């Protein structure tokens, strides 16, 4: 199991990696099913924000 991210930036990096991996899988497998892809993307975001999710938004400073 991969090591837990220690900062919001690391968390974001890991989530982006997972999302791109997901996109790659659908791109090359040519599944083309948008709803499946988005459901799996929500699962990634849910996982990233369930246990230590609060940290994901720390220091983003976008509002």
């Amino acid at each position, binding site marked *: 199991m991969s090591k837990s991210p220690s900062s919001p930036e690391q968390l974001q990096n890991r989530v982006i990696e997972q999302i791109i991996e997901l996109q790659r899988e659908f*791109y090359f497998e040519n599944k083309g099913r948008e709803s499946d892809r988005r459901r799996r993307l929500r699962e990634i975001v849910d996982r*990233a924000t369930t246990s230590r999710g609060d940290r994901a*938004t720390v220091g*983003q400073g976008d509002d």
Partner: protein
Amino acid sequence: MWLEQITLKDFRCFYGESSIEFSTDSEKNVTVIHAENGVGKTTLLNAILWCFYGDTTAKFEKRDDLVNYDARAEGRNRAFVEVLFEHNDARYRARRYTNGGGEERNFTILRLTDGHHQRLPNPDAFINTVLPRGMAGHFLFDGEHAEVFLGADNRASIRRAVQDILGCSLVKTAIQDLSETATYYRKQMPSTKASSSMSTISSRIDALAKQIEQAGLAHEKMQGDVELIDQQIADIDAKLRNSAAAKEIQTRRDRTTVDLARAKKREADAQVEVLKWLGDSGRYLVSTRISELAMDFLDQKETKGRLPAPYNEELVTDLLEMHKCICERELEPGTPSYAAVQGLLQKAANATLRDRIKKVSARVNELRRERSKAPGRLDDANARLASARQDISRYEGDLQEISEQLTGINFDEIAQRESKRNDLRKQANQMRVQIGQLTTQIRNAETEKGTAERDLKKLAAEDAGSRIFAIRYTLCETLKGRLERELQEEEKSARSVLRSSIGKVLERTSRKAFRLQMTEDYSISLVNEAGTQLPKSSGENQLLGLAFTAALVEFAKVRQNASDYRLLRGTIAPLVLDSPFGQLDEAYRQTTAEYVPQMAGQVVLMISKSQSSGGVMEAIENRIGQEFVLVRHNRDSRGERAVELRQFRGKDVETAVFDSKFDGSTFVRVTR
């Protein structure tokens, strides 16, 4: 990827099975396909795309009507295209059938090793790793539309091209997915005490998002429509360029007709001059002998002292009547002296005779004088007549040639095209105004949406039930923003690489000292040293289009081992150039042709007879590995049509065959 061979079976204009091998020699890396318009160049290009992706270019007409008509009439209802290619030291055979054969799959790829073959489980995924679909189109250069592609309104297409080669597909879909997912989380926020305000704000965000989306779609559609209109205008321009040539010929005909009329007038004048001369001076020539004899006679008489006569008749008569000689001696009739003086009357001349002789002498002298001048006048008149007749002959020849050139040209159609072109320009201008309005509308809605989103987040953070969704919503928005920024950074560095690459191509091929400018919004222009934007000719636009394609191909090659996991890797693929020299003048053609073999590892060059002139073939002669001619077969009889013959490597090839068993095209290999 290196293409080795393509086989087409009953595919569009290719009746039965047709096949060609591409050159895989790294030195002689160019495969030339000579083809006139309408013979199958576009079909060949689309056959490759269709085989790999089941898709064709938007320009390809009747995209679902792929089986050759004659084959269908004979009961064959399926077509296929097969491409043999090499990739990373392995050989593959891709084959796609049209639907309807009952086979398990329409698309297969076999890996060929030592006489064995292994069917790949997911051919679509595989081909996308070899040459991603998004990139494939950029390896196919459509010369006819190159100038439109780089037009002012095609910034979106240029950006898409850069993003495609940059391999942004994954990032772009990720951004779209994150945007949708953010909306999903926003809507999940439950009803609570603060829900009333949150609900209102959320609805407003939805409405604004919808407005932005609709305006964006309208904007994109309108932009696409403008691009399409510009393409139509370019098509008309291309036809009008030929029409302009026709009009030029017509003008030449008018001018030559006037010249001919003038030459005929000159001929008539010269003829009159000759006749007049004959009337005026003919007698001088005719009387040459008579006047010579007369003068000789007069001269003789003068010499002998008879003309003019030595005695005056009136004087002799007076002496005889006075009976006295001029020496005072008496002259009595009957005397010998009287008889001697009377004898002088025989030689004496009277006044009338003297006058006549004087006149005859003067007239004969005039004849001699005029005769000496006569040939000069006649020569001049004859020279003018000959010159007029020579001009008439030339003008008549020119008019005959012009008439042949103008046969079949419909000038009404040209006028219609010009009118249509003006209408399209007006339409495009109106659309540009609307595009500007939509841009403002989108910008305003986005500002308002941003404010509403900040308000919503603030409220959600204060509400325990909504907090987790607010966090997820914010995370999606944050990741989306980050990917957008990263994409922009990647594009920025891509633009820099492309700019430099295009600059190098232009340096080699262009005769003007200019440099390329590509702005952040992908507006492409040529500027001089002072940074002033220069107007581009059609030829320079085409050259720029070609340079842009060359730069994309180079960029894809550089990126083939790119390690950034977010972007698709680049690739090496053959470059297919369709009519790349159309708008270039001869000097540009030659320098550009010299550069073509360097544009990619493998180049397929499709050119017509007119495009292969001007030193093009000489420039690539040593780089041609394979050469083919596309020949058109017609069921029709030849009728009045002239024989279309072209010579390749000393052999005649008839490029349009009549009384054939089928309508379609075949390849003829040029033996090297």
